[in-house]
């Protein structure tokens, strides 16, 4: 399994996600600069990491979505390659329109960093196959613009096709107003595209991948990807 992590100017979770993948899976991970026109041959997974690409100026992710490397990333996604956007990376994916909707300023307009509970809504994705349906996992969030929004008809279409993968919830797995940290529609924390190969989520699985940091719920996320790719090869 080969992973490429794209580094935009202002990305700041690039090294974290590189480390998490290497540490959990022991597989090859490469950093790719945003100015490149290509991603390494044979890349199985492309990750757009968290951070403040281009300072979050104009709109979060807007300028990163139009940087040189993105054409190769988009092609990778269109070919069915696995593509993951975490936090700012999710914002970039919506700006490229590879994923529907947009991420707006939090309901309470401030940055918020804290552990969050999420309900796994779908295990039928390459990113979540090793979780149980309805399982409650804990990943931290750290963002000021994570309020997932899209027009009502598109929201319905997204829900109808089972495109919601993670939802903010409480300890019992209930999706409530209180368990929703940013005001996202329907408590949506992460979604997948129709092809099932492109996932975007606001919470950070790479921050929940080691016991010493206080949680290991993210490990199954990386292992799911690994096992999906193994199966594809067979």
């Amino acid at each position, binding site marked *: 399994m080969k992973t490429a992590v794209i580094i935009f100017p202002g990305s700041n979770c690039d090294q974290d996600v590189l480390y998490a993948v290497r540490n959990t899976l022991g597989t090859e991970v490469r950093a790719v600069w945003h100015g490149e026109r290509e991603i390494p041959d044979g890349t199985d997974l492309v990750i757009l990491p968290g951070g403040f690409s281009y*300072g979050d100026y104009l709109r979060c992710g807007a300028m990163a979505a139009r940087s040189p490397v993105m054409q190769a990333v988009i092609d990778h996604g269109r070919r069915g390659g696995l593509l993951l956007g975490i936090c700012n990376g999710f914002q970039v994916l919506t700006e490229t329109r590879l994923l529907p909707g947009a991420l707006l300023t939090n309901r309470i307009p401030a940055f918020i*960093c804290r552990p969050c509970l999420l309900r796994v809504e779908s295990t039928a994705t390459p990113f979540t196959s090793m979780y149980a349906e309805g399982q409650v996992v804990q990943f931290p969030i750290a963002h000021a613009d994570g309020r997932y929004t899209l027009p009502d008809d598109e929201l319905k279409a997204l829900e109808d096709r089972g495109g919601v993968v993670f939802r903010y919830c409480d300890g019992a797995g209930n999706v409530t107003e209180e368990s929703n940290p940013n005001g996202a529609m329907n408590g949506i924390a992460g979604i997948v595209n129709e092809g099932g190969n492109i996932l975007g989520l606001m919470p950070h699985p790479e*921050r929940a991948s080691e016991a010493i*940091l206080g949680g290991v719920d993210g490990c199954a996320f990386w292992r799911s990807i690994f096992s999906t790719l193994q199966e594809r090869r067979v």
Partner: protein
Amino acid sequence: MDFRRYGIREEEYLAAREALGREPNECELRILGVMWSEHCSYKSTKHLLKLFPNKGDKVVLGPGENAGIVDLGDGLGAAFKVESHNHPSAVAPYQGAATGVGGIIRDILALGARPVASMDGLFFGAPGHGKTAMLSSGIVRGVGDYGNAVGVPTVGGKTVYDPSYNENPLLNAFNLGLVRLDEIVSSQTAKPGQLVVLLGSKTGRDGIAGAAFASVELSDDAKADRPSIQIGDPFAEKLLIEACLELQAKRLIVSMQDMGAAGITSSSSEVAAKSGVGMVLAFDKVPLRAADMEPWEIALSESQERMLLIVEPRHLEEVMAVAERWELDCAVIGETTEGDGYSILFHGEEVASFPASLVGDGCPPIHWPARKPDNLEKGWELDVETLPLPEDWNETLLSLLSEPSLASKEWIYDQYDSMVQTNTVRGPGHPVSVLRIKGRETLVAMVLDADPWKCALDPFRGGAEAVARTVRALAVAGAEPLGLTDCLNFPSPENPEQYWVMMECIKGMAACCEALQCPVVSGNVSLYNESAAGAILPTPVIGTVGVIPSVGQFLPSGRWHDGDVLFQVGPCIPSLAGSQYLLMREGRNRGRPLEFLPDVEAGFVRRALKTARDGVASSGRAVAGGGLAVAIAREATESGLGAVVSFEIPTRRDVLLFGEGGARALYSVPMAKVPLFKSLWRGFPLLELGRVQGAELEINGVISVPVDTLPSPRRIR
């Protein structure tokens, strides 16, 4: 020559004239006015700072550099420093705080260290006071927005509320970076014939003479001074960090200096003076944001996100390539020369010329007169026997836990990314902040603390107590203290009583550093923190760094186990002087804090370290603000368990439960390990308090509350 216009005193003017052998010109006077301001020259405190011990086995780099460095073992060092940005934060809270964070990060970066953790010292006015909400929310957003974007986690801090900060809030920014000891970048290694390179943002008019601004009291028309506030760009800083670390890794730089107060002049003359070289700078080569800037404006601009590099000519091309990759401006603005002449050219004409050492070191020190405050002893009057005991102890405990300075600071640290870089083992809201180092066993622990109330009552004892608090917290967690950094926030030194208080605080801090073998490796001084409304409390802020050999030897807090035995270690007679309890009840600060006992402190630290390392306790917490009762309540809420506490003591219950000061800690010990624990603490006062059990907190029959009704930080699971 009207030197006073430039903030220069007569004796300073005379010193400058003598050193130059001629009349200084206007540009030179403007430069000296800033470089010899209190903020840059430490002229009022330089001789006092010599009282601090600054040597030790683990000290790699002491005061005088951009930051101190201590040895973490295995060839790795921790570079750290705390710095004030008080005056800018008072007039432009968001930008002032943001650029404070940016500035301290560049100080760490200048040593070639990767910044890995920030902490912040926040001192706000009374919560109900008119400006406090605006100032505190602006400052917190500024710290958060900058640190979050730049990708350096804010892992801890100290927040205090007191009316003395109403008009003059304090923002002290701490940063810690990691650097391999064989890769430290020095500002002392420039040689003649090398290039002086400016990397980072363009130079504009922002922040001109900000350092001088920080060296006077805040006037009512301080708003008119606003043009001197710098604007921070964390995006540019992030690029600057990556570019500088890449340059260092490729060994393309000889020396590096951040541009903080007094901009190019300060950074370049410092490199020249410390390296013992001369320097010629051509200011027309400086990339500018405003076309028509005067040489003195370029000299003193405090535009943010810039670094000064000294580069071998043969490496210039590669340096430029790295800068281009990170989309940063980069320009050669001069070169180093033989001798010690420092001169500034503008379109070929010399506009200023000094000996390099004059700018940084030439300011004559000021020894202000000191006088013990007349009413100091009066403030010590406190006859405990005349104080009524609380009528409702439950209510008293609950109120104390809700006091602004003691209550949860979640609203603040939720706005900080405390986890980026994925090293945070313990973040904000814990008695110590702990980071792991990837690929190593070692953990780095750090604490930022202050106790301004006790410093106000008895500056010597208060200064010692403030240092001791940080060391106790580290020792209880199992962290051997390696060194500390301090930010000395005081009002004007020109008032003899205020000067005396500062001097005594420093002496007290120094005594504690000496006793606990915890040297001061870096620091910063911020004076003139007063306004028409009055002076701030004397506020030395201490940031202490320690090392824990491995995660197994880290003793956490808030981890009681059912059935554990609770102990207080340390002297049983604390004091209500300057305590949060007394402040809450009386609304005024009085009493005399406990005497500083060097041997007791040292004995405490030794035993606490062994307790953590031998794994004989489940949980431990040094007793600090709010006293034993608050320590018990915090341990209970974080553990989600109750306790039955009952003890006999030779003092009043309110004094033991709410008194503060002295080397004390609360431990929870598994039954099987009690004999071991007791033998470890032999020769030290030890009080068995009770047992962990149930869901209620019961203390001596006077306090009885369900733990889940106590205010507590959010628990996810």
